[in-house]
């Protein structure tokens, strides 16, 4: 394992310390490291709190700030945070209008956020994101994983929260955005969890994992490494097929790197995906290319398509000032 670290036990704390120091104009840290919050609370606004296992940076702490999250709770690497973290975060940033949890659909995350909600003496609603089409839902009751589309939900709901919408409206909006968002990923290499010290899975020199999850969970199938165009074709067809009738009109296209993939390849994939989308009734109205929802040092990327309407385009375009996404502010 080759990593820029001091010891596996201190990775998370040191990385968080660096993050909060580098972005002290935007965020503040809980002294006990349970959460990262906005430097300043906006009174009367619904508090948006997300979180999950670490190792997906900049998700979620990188999305704390004006126009997006109020707080993020980082768990250990790839391990959901514990209820005390969400409780402490809610107590720090909730100001009367209630708390909206944005949770990626993994049983660990769902259960820990559920326990926090049960223990909290404040109004709490939850939006679950489950945009990953790689694994069919039909036969498994766990449901789909929440992956890169989570960032889009956090941005759009974040902008709406800034407008002063209430908890129920934000929850409904989050569910609507999630319902129109689909992703699929591919890995060219495994990631290595620091504490494990070795790659989570083994891919041969000529292999890739199609449909991989953001924790290096296996996907649809392990297949020979294919060209960018062939990968784009499989991903686009999976995403469009799953969106079905919704796949028409304006969309946000996100090409998301997993942490070990250079920007040059992400832009090349963006080009391949766009070419594949040509003539399919989908107009790429907004684009994001970069590593936003990562899987430690895994090489590979995901393709996310989120269908937009005039309201959600406007919310996407609204000012945002976070460590990882910033415009108009």
């Amino acid at each position, binding site marked *: 394992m080759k990593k820029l670290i001091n010891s596996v036990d201190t990775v998370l704390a040191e990385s968080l310390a660096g993050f909060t120091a580098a972005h002290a104009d935007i965020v503040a840290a809980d002294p006990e490291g349970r959460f990262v919050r906005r430097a300043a609370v906006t009174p009367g606004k619904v508090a948006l709190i997300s979180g999950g*296992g670490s190792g997906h940076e900049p998700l979620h702490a990188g999305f704390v700030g004006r126009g997006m999250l109020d707080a993020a709770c980082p*768990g*250990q*690497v*790839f*391990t*959901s*945070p*514990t*209820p*005390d973290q969400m409780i402490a975060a809610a107590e720090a940033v909730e100001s009367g209008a209630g708390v909206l949890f944005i949770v990626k659909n*993994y*049983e*660990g995350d769902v*259960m*820990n956020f*559920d*326990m926090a909600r049960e223990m909290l003496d404040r109004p709490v609603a939850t939006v679950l994101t489950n945009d990953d089409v790689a*694994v069919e839902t039909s*036969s*498994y*009751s*766990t449901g789909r*994983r929440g992956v890169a589309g989570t960032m889009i939900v956090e941005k759009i709901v974040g902008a709406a929260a800034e407008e002063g919408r209430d908890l129920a409206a934000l929850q409904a909006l989050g569910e609507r955005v999630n319902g129109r968002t689909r992703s699929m990923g591919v890995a060219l290499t495994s990631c290595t*969890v620091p*504490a*494990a010290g070795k790659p*989570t*899975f083994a891919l041969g020199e000529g292999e890739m994992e199609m449909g991989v*999850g953001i*924790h*290096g*969970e*296996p*996907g649809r199938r392990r297949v020979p490494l294919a060209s960018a165009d062939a990968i784009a074709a499989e991903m686009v067809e999976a995403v469009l097929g799953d969106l079905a009738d919704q796949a028409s009109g304006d969309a946000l296209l996100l090409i998301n790197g997993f942490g070990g993939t250079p920007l040059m390849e992400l832009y090349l994939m963006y080009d391949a995906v766009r070419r594949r989308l040509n003539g399919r009734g989908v107009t790429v109205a907004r684009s994001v290319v970069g590593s936003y929802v990562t899987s430690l040092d895994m090489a590979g990327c995901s393709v996310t398509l989120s269908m937009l309407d005039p309201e959600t385009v406007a919310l996407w375009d609204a000012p945002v000032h976070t460590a990882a996404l910033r415009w108009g502010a």
Partner: protein
Amino acid sequence: MDAAARARLIRALAGTVIAHADELTGLDQAIGDGDHGLNMKRGFETVLAEADTLAAQPLPAMLAGIGKTLVMRVGGASGPLYGTLFLTLGKTLPEESGMADAAPALEAAVAAVKARGKSDAGQKTMLDVLVPVLEELKAGGEGLPARLAATAHAAAEATVPMRAVRGRASFLGERSVGHMDPGARSSALMVEAVVTWLEEQA
């Protein structure tokens, strides 16, 4: 049962989990995200550090205390589930409890785990050990402790050919077949630790 005995129970539970952490992580690398041993170890190390304080309380309060620590320290899916298991055991057991109270308490605890996990036996999870162990406990009779341990290990083994329907392994579909569920294994280890402790009590 005195504080020393209760402390031995804590050490037995924590000891087996910590000693098998690498094995549990290895199982989770095969069909999950490779952290089950790390998660459980983190939780039980805290439990171990608080062993004397916890053991100073009556058994129900001690079990609830273990549950609370697990909830707050383990994370992942296993944190809320094992946390709920111990919390419910603690809440259900009467202050002055005997072996007869064990089955109803475990019954309530397993039900709480099912509710928390929206899951049941047959889905390749810890419940595939907890449910048969509960049945065996309810059956009672001769040589119960040894039978409980045997049931637990056999039940963990029996998760190997299962296809996961719950937990991260469910993302694997068919590919989850052929591996033991990490949570089933940790449950079996804890059952064995309790049984050994019980036998040493006698």
